[in-house]
């Protein structure tokens, strides 16, 4: 008997589908937004989109609840109550922009340094950076400094590209995938899709991570390492590989600086630098003719070891000899590092042999002739199918830069960079350090009412490029590119508020923030930062940081601490541009960028921040934003995206250029460009020809392609820098051998941490505090279904992470008599929090952890004040200080990597004490009012009920 047809099986899903780009996180997947009766019916992944191929994560699918969240700001706000009260009045855009322009114009005329403009999860850095440069302040950066600059800087300085989202494993071909310290990463969906592929193909997936959740949970092998010791683990693997001769000598010789001759002249200003010819080309020793010749001399077979003398009598050695000698030392033997890393020697040996076996015994060959930069023809691509990925587990430590360097060195040693089956670059990478600018911000670079002489951020080639004054004092408010953090390529956003409050190196007038919750989860020492923002000069009664302008889209904690709020739209209501000039969405095989466009019109008095920046540019008549008559150049951001040109023919978008949209990369402005993008699903993709797809760092066809695309104007091949001359220069300065000399205060630290060869040292906090007093590590992880602080206003996502327990390893629970639901004090050298715990076994036995950014401030995010996020939820940040404990000399270093200034979030050391049961976690903060008045909160949601049948 057939059951009666009771269901309408073919009901149309929606009236219309609008394709745009997700921004529930920075992965930037393509989405199909189904619109029904003018409302969002359903959001699904765009099947044609190269990033996500149709899949969507939890956040992406929850876009509806984000878009309709009560926490959305509704109009510009001017603070009426004291900072932190959340009391504002709604004002018009004209008034708001007038006030902002007034404040900014004053600063620009008097002293541009007094504007600190820092942007958080900014996906328009090419605009915001350009704006800041035209404004003329030296104080601009995005959030990279507290995010993962160690990864970026180490990658670019070593192989000309980083993991992050700037490269990816060759998912289809890799046979061994090794992941260090990743919970989610920016490439959220691609990573998940990739891991699935790896497992489907029967390849092996190893995860090195103190906690076995998420990706680590599905890994074939989980190495529950002790935080901060990956460098040692990697160098021990290198030790094993060298010992077993499992290295790709040919690859090293061709593509790395292994053969480059290092000057051996202790006590001189050139000791440890590369020997170079007249026009600065590094020299190598040619073994057939036994002559010293410039690198890349055709047919040369350079020596990788030995000791030679140049005509001028200087002694030189190939850098590889230094490398091999260093890592063959027994102190890097697996047995020597086992106890420090918490990883058994056998496991390390097993890992090393798996790497060796896969790289060499399972090598793959792609039959595709190609030509290298020396014009040499190769029969095909040799693939070493061992791929790596790493993120903040390595980088969020004060030894993260060197650790990341060590990992890249390992890749190069086995010949597994941009070859089939290995980690591969995504255009516009690889890009040698030489192709990056040097930082600008020294006194001579700026002045009243004039643009900054060059880009803010870049890579110093040596101490001479630092942004310091004559007596070595920092020039930027965040002390980036100073002796404190010489290669802070992304700035130090986490130091801005502290420094501005202390007036060190100088006070500022206006702090301009965008899309960063600095009064909460993106600051270390959150409670302290809040005080700094509230602190007034007793004499004048003026706030220590007099004026704060902030652009947010939601009622975040930081909104309550700003004086003027420029409310942004949601990601579905504005134009955006994911640009080749910024952080594109390219793949190893394709050049790609994308846009967002208003798929729904704002129902509030809000404006896209980028259009607001353009408006401010006009009000301040910044060059590049107004014509010679002072008239605005662009009507809005959409117009800018299409018509702005950085270099002739090169604009924010690479696709559909040229009068009739048939040009790629370089080409005249195309008025219909956005239309073409929208028709194409809001993205553009151009494939890299097969003969250019691998060995991009040395592939002639790729380099020509890159020039055609407009990444560079001349080919920019990369020689992998295993030995870093830049770091050695800083050492020479620290030794007082090479000008400029490092200040006495910094010399020892630079000597200890700037080894030109990848090195490992104990993370600073662990070295500074008494290990017995603070015996455990405390770290955080990204939850897959939450994006930092901004998922808690989302009715669907918050049900998954309504609060966050502190996960405590079983052995620690037993030692302290703790069980699920108990409350504890977690105590660091800086402070203590009181929280509820849950027991866990699948975790490194000395590592306590929690989910990041779940805890919320009472009253924020338009949540009821008794919301669990604000009651029980907590931040680890209260335990982390932006400064390290005072040293003997009373001097306090910032809690950052000494090379890059990367915030050392995961260096935290703690102890745990049982506490009496409680209702709310500590510290607890006062309630903040909902900016612009209480919103109406439905006490029940029935989204889509009107469509119910």
């Amino acid at each position, binding site marked *: *008997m*057939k*059951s009666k047809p*009771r*269901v309408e099986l*073919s*009901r149309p*899903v929606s009236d219309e589908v609008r394709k745009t780009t997700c921004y529930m996180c920075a992965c930037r997947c393509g989405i199909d937004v189904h619109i029904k009766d003018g409302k969002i019916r*359903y959001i*699904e992944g765009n099947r044609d989109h190269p990033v996500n191929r*149709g*899949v*969507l*994560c939890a956040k992406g*699918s929850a876009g509806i609840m984000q878009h309709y969240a009560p926490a959305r700001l509704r109009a510009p706000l001017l603070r009426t109550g004291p900072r932190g009260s959340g009391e504002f009045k709604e004002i018009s855009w004209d008034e708001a922009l007038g006030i902002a322009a007034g404040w900014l114009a004053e600063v620009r005329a008097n002293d541009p340094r007094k504007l600190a403009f820092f942007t958080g999860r900014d996906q328009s850095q090419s605009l915001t950076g350009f704006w800041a440069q035209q404004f003329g302040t030296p104080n601009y950066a995005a959030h990279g400094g507290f995010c993962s600059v160690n990864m970026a800087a180490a990658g670019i300085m070593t192989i000309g590209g980083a993991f992050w989202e700037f490269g990816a494993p060759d998912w289809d071909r890799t046979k061994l995938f090794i992941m260090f310290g990743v919970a989610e990463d920016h490439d959220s*969906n691609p990573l998940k*899709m990739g*891991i699935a592929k790896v*497992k489907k193909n029967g390849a092996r997936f190893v995860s090195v991570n103190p906690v*076995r*959740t998420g990706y*680590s*949970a*599905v890994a074939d*092998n989980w*190495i*529950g390492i002790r935080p901060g010791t990956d460098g040692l683990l990697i160098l021990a693997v290198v030790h094993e590989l060298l*010992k*077993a*001769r499992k290295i790709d000598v040919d690859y090293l010789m061709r593509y790395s600086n292994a053969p480059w001759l290092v000057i051996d002249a202790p006590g001189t200003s050139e000791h440890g630098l590369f020997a170079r010819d007249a026009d600065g080309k590094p020299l190598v020793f040619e073994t057939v003719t036994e002559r010293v010749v410039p690198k890349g001399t055709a047919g040369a077979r350079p020596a990788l*070891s030995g000791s030679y003398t140049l005509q001028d009598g200087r002694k030189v050695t190939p850098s590889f000899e230094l490398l*091999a000698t260093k890592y063959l030392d027994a102190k890097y033997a697996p047995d020597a590092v086992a106890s420090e890393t918490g990883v*058994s020697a*056998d*496991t390390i*040996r*097993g890992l*090393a042999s798996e790497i060796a*076996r896969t790289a060499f015994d399972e090598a793959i060959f792609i039959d595709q002739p190609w030509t290298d930069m020396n014009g040499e023809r190769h029969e095909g691509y040799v693939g070493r199918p061992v791929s790596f990925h790493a993120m903040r587990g390595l980088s969020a430590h004060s030894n993260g830069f060197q650790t990341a360097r060590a990992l890249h060195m390992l890749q190069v040693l086995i010949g597994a960079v941009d070859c089939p089956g290995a980690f591969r670059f995504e255009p516009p990478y690889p890009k040698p350090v030489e192709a990056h600018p040097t930082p600008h911000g020294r006194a001579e670079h700026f002045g009243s009412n004039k643009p900054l002489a060059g880009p803010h951020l870049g890579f110093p080639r040596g101490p001479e490029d630092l942004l310091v004054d004559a007596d070595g004092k920092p020039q930027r408010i965040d002390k980036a590119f100073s002796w404190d953090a010489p290669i802070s390529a992304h700035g130090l956003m986490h130091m801005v508020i502290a420094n501005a409050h202390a007036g060190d190196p100088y006070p500022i007038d206006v702090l301009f923030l965008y899309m960063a919750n600095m009064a909460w989860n993106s600051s270390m020492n959150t409670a302290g930062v809040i005080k700094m923002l509230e602190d007034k000069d007793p004499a004048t009664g003026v706030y220590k940081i007099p004026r704060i302008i902030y652009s947010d889209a939601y009622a975040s904690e930081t909104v309550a601490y700003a004086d003027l709020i420029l409310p942004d739209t949601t990601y579905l209501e504005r134009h955006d541009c994911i640009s080749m000039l910024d952080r594109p969405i390219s793949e190893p095989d394709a050049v790609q960028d994308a846009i967002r466009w208003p798929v729904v019109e704002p129902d509030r008095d809000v404006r896209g921040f980028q259009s607001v920046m353009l408006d401010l540019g006009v009000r301040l008549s910044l060059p590049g934003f107004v014509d010679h008559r002072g008239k605005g150049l662009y009507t809005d951001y959409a117009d800018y995206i299409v018509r702005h040109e950085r270099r002739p023919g090169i604009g924010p978008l690479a696709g559909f250029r040229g009068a009739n949209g048939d040009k790629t990369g370089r080409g005249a402005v195309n008025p219909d460009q956005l239309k073409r993008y929208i028709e194409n699903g809001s993205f553009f993709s151009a494939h890299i020809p097969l003969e250019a797809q691998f060995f991009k760092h040395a592939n002639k066809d790729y380099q020509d392609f890159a020039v055609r695309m407009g990444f560079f104007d001349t080919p920019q091949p990369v020689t992998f820098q295993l030995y870093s001359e830049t770091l050695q220069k800083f050492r020479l300065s620290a030794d007082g051998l090479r000008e400029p000399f490092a200040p006495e205060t910094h010399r020892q630290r630079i000597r200890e941490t700037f080894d030109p060869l990848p090195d490992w040292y104990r993370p600073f906090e662990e070295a500074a505090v008494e290990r017995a007093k603070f015996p455990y590590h405390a770290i955080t992880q990204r939850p897959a*279904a939450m994006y930092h602080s901004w998922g808690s206003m989302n*009715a*669907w996502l*918050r049900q998954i992470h309504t609060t966050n327990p502190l996960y405590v*390893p079983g*052995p620690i629970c037993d030692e302290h008599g703790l069980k699920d639901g108990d409350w504890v004090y977690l105590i660091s050298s800086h402070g203590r929090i009181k929280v509820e715990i849950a027991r866990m*076994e*699948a*975790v490194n036995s000395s590592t306590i952890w929690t989910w990041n950014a779940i805890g919320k401030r009472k009253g924020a995010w*338009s*949540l*009821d004040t008794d*919301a669990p996020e604000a009651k029980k939820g907590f931040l680890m940040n209260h335990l982390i200080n932006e400064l390290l404990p005072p040293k003997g000399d009373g001097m306090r270093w910032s809690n950052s990597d000494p090379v890059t200034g990367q915030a050392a979030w995961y260096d935290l050391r703690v102890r745990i004490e049982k506490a009496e049961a409680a209702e709310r976690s500590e510290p607890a903060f006062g309630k903040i009012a909902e900016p612009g008045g209480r919103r109406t*909160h439905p*006490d*029940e*949601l*029935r*989204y889509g009920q009107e*469509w119910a*049948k």
Partner: protein
Amino acid sequence: MTSLPAQEPTRKLGLVIDLDVCVGCHACVISCKEWNTGGYGAALSDQDPYGADVSGTFLNRVHTFEVIPEGGEIVGEAGEARIVHFPKSCLHCEDAPCVTVCPTGASYKRTEDGIVLVDEDMCIGCGLCAWACPYGAREMDLAAGVMKKCTLCVDRIYNETIQEIDRVPSCVRTCPANARHYGDLADPQSDVSLMVAARGGIDLMPEQGTRPVNKYLPPRPRKPLAADTGQLLLAENTEGATGFFAWLDGVLERL
């Protein structure tokens, strides 16, 4: 009619969930929610959405379990203790107790494909079917007072207004780790059936006698890295740098 179909359905549509790759991202949970809240039957309501007791109706939820081998050493690379993410929705059982207990005929199992559905217009919201389901796959929607459950996206899989390729459940289409598979488990040659055969797919709580259609693929066995030690030792291998550089010269000669 809440008696089960007289003769076994010719097709048994269902899901196969791969516990070996599920990373517990909850994508399927939210995708299911957003598809169904505007789709089949009443919306999936959320109570106190911005307050202390926020809670809502979900047709698919992902649990996370910790599995500890008896006497297993807890930490270390072999990682004895491990985490398994576990998505759970209606298993569209062949002997579905939820159907037979229903007093109104609202609960039924389709003869054509075995999908178990609730006809919400007939449902009195007595909750007995939820009691009868051992898996917790049925949830009363507190706003509508009717029983909600996974529909296997019956309004997608046959939907002629969407592309053929998209006629799969929302959760399956969205899963980034490809841990969810959909198909006809009555057809031994279907991809899902082959997968189940190859990976030893299992029933949940077979002892409850429900004969679930959905199957779970257990985590694959894992081989510790330490087991691979030694391979390296076979390589020519003398301590210290000197031997190494001698070898290196040799290699360079041969290049």
